[in-house]
């Protein structure tokens, strides 16, 4: 019903190659999250799947049928645009109901569907407003509502929650997960938010400059990254990269996540202890991030649970959890 296959898909805008040959398979009913640095081509890929953008070369297929030339309207896709693209002349209700109306769904049913989406997105009080009278987050919710009132084969979400507050974001995320379970539709979701990516995805696709770096289940990527890029990209704060040579190891680079470094006070020199000086402390309430400057490896981040007291400039020492280190070669490839 909604298995998506991309085969050697490329895309160029004039002379700029944006997508440089992507192969990807998304199973029917799978929840696939695209992550990658800003400008790596996530939106472009989504737009190609939607049919809004020419495929320069390669094939886009749904259930084995090539759909490169199928009109977007015929692809049974719902999409949340990164820029919202709301209909400025329609009320919130009509923005959400237009697709159903077009499909000939009877009025009461449309009203019901839009009411449900409105309630779910906390838009109930705004149903008769027009986009110009909404706040940024409200607009984004309308864009989400417009997609979810329908029951298409494939959902495409382009950073749908970026302008929502934390509570609403969690809530909407849960609703989307629920929608996914209920409809069993295939979903492709672009996000910059680690939590969203980790919690929603059946499969995460890490993109970098128009290429797929790694595809896998969230914890697989976290625990078993293929290279420094993926290792650094998944997990926040970023993984620390240390010079293996300075530690007497044979690999080029050693990676360790901030949560797998332990920290103690004092400047004593013991084997396996990396000495440094606190350069900056960030207290986030539930956790504390300590940035430690070291001679050999530059700035390292340590993530500690709860509220912890470290003073800036204090001498400290760090220890690696040896079961949690990753080794990489000079090209950044993981050595397993």
């Amino acid at each position: 019903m909604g298995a998506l296959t991309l085969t050697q898909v490329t895309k160029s805008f004039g002379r700029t190659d944006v997508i440089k040959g992507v192969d990807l398979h998304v199973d029917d009913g799978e929840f696939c999250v695209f992550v990658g640095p800003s400008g790596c081509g996530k939106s472009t890929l989504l737009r190609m799947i939607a049919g809004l953008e020419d495929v320069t070369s390669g094939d886009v297929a749904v259930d084995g049928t090539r759909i490169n030339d199928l009109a977007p309207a015929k692809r049974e896709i719902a999409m949340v645009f990164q820029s919202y693209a709301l209909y400025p002349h329609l009320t919130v209700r009509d923005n959400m109901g237009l697709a159903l109306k077009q499909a000939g769904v009877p009025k009461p049913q449309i009203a019901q569907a839009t009411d449900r989406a409105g309630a779910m997105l906390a838009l109930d009080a705004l149903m008769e407003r027009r986009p110009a009278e909404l706040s940024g987050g409200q607009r984004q919710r309308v864009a989400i509502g417009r997609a979810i009132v329908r029951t298409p084969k494939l959902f495409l979400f382009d950073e749908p929650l970026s302008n929502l507050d934390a509570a609403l974001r969690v809530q909407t995320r849960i609703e989307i997960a629920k929608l996914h379970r209920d409809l069993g539709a295939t979903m492709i979701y672009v996000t910059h938010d680690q939590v969203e990516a980790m919690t929603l995805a059946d499969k995460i696709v890490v993109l970098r400059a128009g290429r797929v770096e790694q595809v896998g289940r969230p914890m697989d990527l976290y625990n078993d990254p293929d290279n420094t890029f993926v290792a650094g990209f998944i997990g926040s704060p970023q993984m620390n990269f240390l010079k293996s040579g300075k530690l007497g190891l044979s690999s080029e680079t050693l990676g360790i996540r901030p949560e797998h470094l332990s920290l103690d006070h004092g400047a004593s020199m013991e084997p396996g202890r990396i000495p440094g000086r606190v350069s900056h402390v960030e207290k986030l309430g539930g956790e504390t991030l300590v940035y430690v400057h070291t001679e050999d490896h530059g700035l390292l981040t340590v993530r500690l649970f709860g509220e912890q007291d470290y003073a800036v400039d204090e001498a400290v020492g760090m220890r690696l959890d040896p079961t949690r280190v990753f080794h990489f070669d000079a090209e950044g490839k993981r050595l397993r």
Partner: protein
Amino acid sequence: MMSTARHSPLRSLAAHGILLGYTLIALFPVFVIVVNSFKNRRAIFADPLALPSAETFDLVGYKTVLAQGDFLQYFLNSMTVTVASLFFVLLFGAMAAFALSEYRFRGNLLMGLYLALGIMIPIRLGTVAILQLMVASGLVNTLTALILVYTAQGLPLAVFILSEFMRGVSADLKDAGRIDGLSEYRIFFRLVLPLVRPAMATVAVFTMIPIWNDLWFPLILAPSEATKTITLGSQVFIGQFVTNWNAVLAALGLAIVPVLVLYLIFSRQLIRGITAGAVK
């Protein structure tokens, strides 16, 4: 920007069909004009649809035209008047339109109405007063007189159309300019004007056509040999009892070319997506 996927062959075939059909309707009479301007009089009326043949081919119209008066001069006069008037209409009109569309001030609507009055009365009615004004200021038989009149004549329409389009320019964008410390003038010239290019082009074309084709004011205000416009120059061939159709066709046919060129220049400003990427 758009995809082949969104390019249904059936729909585009239908579109081409309709457009081609209408193009034929639009061009057929023009074809008749052009074809006949190359024929002798007898042939024009014997079979107006026939292409010029060896027998009927005749450049007499063009010869007459070029022999009569200083056509190059007329042409230059027309060009000067049209381009200068256009410049002032666009500049002043856009400025006024910006004031009307951007600022709320007392009398805004009334000012809009006042500036629109001009499209409601044919300016011809003011001829005598205008002529008196020009006589008093010694501008009779100068191109300046024509430029002044055409500027005034073109302003109402320009203001009317441009203010509508300027209302569509994103307020956030202008606000961003204000935050950046741009004066209202800069906002107008640097931000708003470039973004209403299609509307400016449209207004330019609408303004230019009646100016170019006008016969009345050149006849009244500047009929002298040195200031004659090309339309007035062509009028020589329309007489009391006989009209030299060869010459009229040739003269007016020739006179289309420059406007067409101007049109082509302006219509290049009709561009899609000028404001794309501005706001989300």
